[in-house]
């Protein structure tokens, strides 16, 4: 389970088991039955997740209100819904599934409990899957790793950076034989340009060298910010990917690509273009919702791009990939 991109094309990190996820109360996923609001789910749409708690009482707010469906499912311990979320991401091609319960509570101890709970549940639902333990609070990550049965699959840690206390997760990753995500956040602030993105990740690379984290287990995230808020953000990311790929041929490089289009219309146009550009620059992993955004076209694109740009001699990998498609 070291996720060989030469075989997979791209490592797909499913971003959906995150308690911040939401959709509009007035959207097609919401049904009202006997006066109560539900999210319908499942292949036959017969599953029902009760969303009475987050559905707006005031009819006029339905159009704009958001339903935090993952937080609802976790809070109610609706195992069936979470199982469906995980299984549909796997069916859509996710290799690693991210787990984030930060939005469940502002109290650290409660967050730790939710993380332990979801780790155990996810491993029960699909034991062979690698799950990324994701939190902005290091202790929540530690709680998740402690609960993780590393004999059945490898965990990932999401993530280390230069912020206070985060590098303490490196030895923990080493001990758990975990995949390690590293992002370009600085000690005192977010990187302002592509040089700072590279500089911060180089410091983290040195730390991971010292801890002897295998190259193939390092996932570098140069950080994607919305171009709506800063015209340079898309370019900064792509340039950083390009530089990092030249410096480190064997690490994984990924990003939360859909951030780039936040606040703009027809986001899919921007997102798809951005993933494509990132792959040309050297990205070999993506953090996406594989259900809404099937990764197959990006995987095909990466095999093709490598063959086209003389990074796949005699098109060996491309041909192998095509034959495997049948």
């Amino acid at each position, binding site marked *: 389970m070291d996720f060989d991109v030469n075989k997979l094309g791209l490592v797909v990190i499913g971003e959906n088991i995150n308690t*911040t996820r939401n959709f509009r109360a007035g959207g097609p996923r919401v049904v009202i039955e006997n006066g109560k609001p539900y999210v319908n789910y499942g292949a036959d749409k017969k599953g029902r997740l009760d969303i009475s708690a987050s559905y707006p009482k005031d009819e006029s707010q339905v159009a704009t209100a958001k339903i935090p469906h993952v937080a609802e499912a976790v809070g109610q311990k609706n195992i069936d819904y979470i199982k469906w979320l995980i299984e549909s991401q796997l069916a859509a091609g996710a290799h690693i599934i991210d787990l984030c319960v*930060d*939005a*469940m*509570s*502002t109290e*650290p101890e409660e*967050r730790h409990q939710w993380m332990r709970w979801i780790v155990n549940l996810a491993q029960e639902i699909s034991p062979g899957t690698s799950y990324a333990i994701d*939190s*902005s*609070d290091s202790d*929540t990550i530690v709680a998740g790793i402690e609960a993780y049965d590393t004999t059945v699959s490898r965990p990932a840690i999401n993530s280390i950076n230069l*912020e*206070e206390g985060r590098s303490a997760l490196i030895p923990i990753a080493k001990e758990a034989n975990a995949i390690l995500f590293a992002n370009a*956040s*600085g000690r*005192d*602030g*977010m990187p302002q340009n592509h040089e700072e993105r590279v500089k911060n990740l180089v410091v983290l690379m040195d730390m991971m060298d010292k801890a002897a984290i295998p190259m193939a287990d390092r996932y570098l995230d140069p950080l994607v*910010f*919305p*171009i*709506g*808020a*800063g*015209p340079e953000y898309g370019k900064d990311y792509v340039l950083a990917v390009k530089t990092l790929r030249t410096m480190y041929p064997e690490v994984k490089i990924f990003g939360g690509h859909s951030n780039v289009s936040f*606040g*703009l*219309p027809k986001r899919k146009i921007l997102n798809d273009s951005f993933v494509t550009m990132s792959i040309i620059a050297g990205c070999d992993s993506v953090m996406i919702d594989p259900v809404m955004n099937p990764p197959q076209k990006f995987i095909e694109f990466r095999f093709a791009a490598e063959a086209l740009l003389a990074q796949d001699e005699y098109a060996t990998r491309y041909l192998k990939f095509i034959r495997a498609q049948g």
Partner: protein
Amino acid sequence: MPVDYDVIANAIVEADTDTAVDAVKADLEILGQEGLSELDSAKAILNGGLIAGMDIISELWVQEKIFIPEVLLSAKVMHACMNLLRPILEASNEPPRGIVVIGTVKGDLHDIGQNIVSMMLRGNGFEVHNIGPNSSPEKFMDKCREVNANLVGLSALLTTTMPMQRETIKAFDEAGLLEEAAIMVGGAPVTSDWAEKIDADGYAPDAAHTVKLANLLVEDLGVEAAL
């Protein structure tokens, strides 16, 4: 030719700097010829033209008819116009609409949201002191005292840093600064329930609503001061 404030408002909506700046200059002259003082002219142009334009922008944004980059472009045009009016307003010791200290709380490095809010508040006539991300309660309080702020904006983008909004409000309370300034909270995971729970004075879900909230809070403070 009488003054037509719509020319300025429309130029702001269209993000046309040259037209907006020329109209501000022309209007200052016309109003002066009509016998208005320089200060009254500046205030009339600010409210009738600039802020009216930004109000339209906010409304279009809320309706998703325009998008963030367009809002930021219009805010830039507003700034260019403000550069002409500010010396007049300042020379007369006319207080700004409100003095805001804004930042992201300690432990949280996200700065994009607070920067957009800062730009929108400036674009609506507020004096804004942006102290950046990872700001401790002490840093907020020191800046507040230094600039005599009457509004404070606390941003938190993580569930794990939301408690620092509460800590910061507590620190303001203990220092007796809640009498001086109203506290607004915001950020993606923040809700109005949370704002109420931590005794904030207001919550806004986005930058456009922050402007509305800031206006309401300033009016409230004004009323209290008058009583």
